């Protein structure tokens, strides 16, 4: 059975087609879901893609978190379904409190669009289960608000429960503890600022993103 990955389109999303292409490349089947839908159909995994959902009004992810589909996404996540938020999708997951912490403006106030070298810190997430701790991946970032912030208490919990999934080798945005991606305690909900879908074909300069997305496809 081909793994079916639902990619949610919010008004202002702009990476959804790239995610569908990348999912197809790694052997899954991507399909678009509209943010006003209230059910996810028969998808095996959900991706909230990058972009500027609802224009980033109020705060990044603040409006998208209340889009009608998010009720179904929350139930799917709580039932153990794989949910991945990429960039703006990560911001939405923190606003929805499916992941802890928040994403704030980059240190230095620059919009960053560049390759980043990431280190795999945990194999306990749906994206990294096929990789090894210490693996380095080259994947682009493309964000203004990727500076991960959380309380000391949350940071300790993330460390204790193995929820830090990816870190930056050279922290580009001021993120706490160099964090580029985290997961929930059970590892089925993952948020990351880098764009794996933009590193899923040799023509894009790296295929390391495909290694992450394969985790979503391989299933249990």
């Amino acid at each position, binding site marked *: 059975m081909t793994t079916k990955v639902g990619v949610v389109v919010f008004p202002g999303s702009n990476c959804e087609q790239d995610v569908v292409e990348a999912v197809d490349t790694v052997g899954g089947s991507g399909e678009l879901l509209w943010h006003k839908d209230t059910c996810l159909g028969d998808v095996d995994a959900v991706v909230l893609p990058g972009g500027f959902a609802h224009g980033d009004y109020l705060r990044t992810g603040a409006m998208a978190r209340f889009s009608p589909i998010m009720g179904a996404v929350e139930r799917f996540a709580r039932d153990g379904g794989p949910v991945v938020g990429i960039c703006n999708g990560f911001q939405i997951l923190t606003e929805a409190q499916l992941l802890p912490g*928040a994403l704030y403006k980059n240190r230095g106030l620059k919009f960053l669009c560049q390759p980043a070298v990431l280190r795999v810190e945990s194999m306990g997430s749906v994206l990294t289960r096929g990789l090894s701790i210490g693996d380095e991946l080259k994947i682009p970032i493309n964000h203004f608000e990727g500076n991960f912030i959380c309380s000391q208490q949350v940071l300790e919990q993330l460390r204790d429960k193995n929820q830090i999934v990816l870190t930056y080798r050279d922290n580009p945005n001021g993120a706490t503890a160099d964090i580029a991606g985290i997961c929930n305690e059970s590892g089925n909900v993952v948020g990351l600022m880098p764009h794996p879908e933009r590193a899923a074909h040799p023509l894009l300069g790296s295929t390391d993103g495909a290694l992450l997305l394969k985790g979503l496809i391989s299933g249990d």
Partner: protein
Amino acid sequence: MSTAFDVAVEVSLRDGIADPEGLTIERALPALGFSGVSGVRVGKSLRFVVEASDEDEARTQVEAMCERFLANPVIEDVDISLSPAL
């Protein structure tokens, strides 16, 4: 019988959270001849009108809006001001 209240919500970054925007503005001020400015913090301000039976109920409603939507408690604090609308 409900009363209209003018509401002002000031959203600011929590103490201890670096404010790159405030810092950039602070650094720009001396170049414009304004010296001696420190502690610049950038926030946002929301204004709206709420109908409620009394001020307590209005405040409770606004606090709930802030908790769930208008601010993110992980990084932001809010200051709520209420007054009967004229």
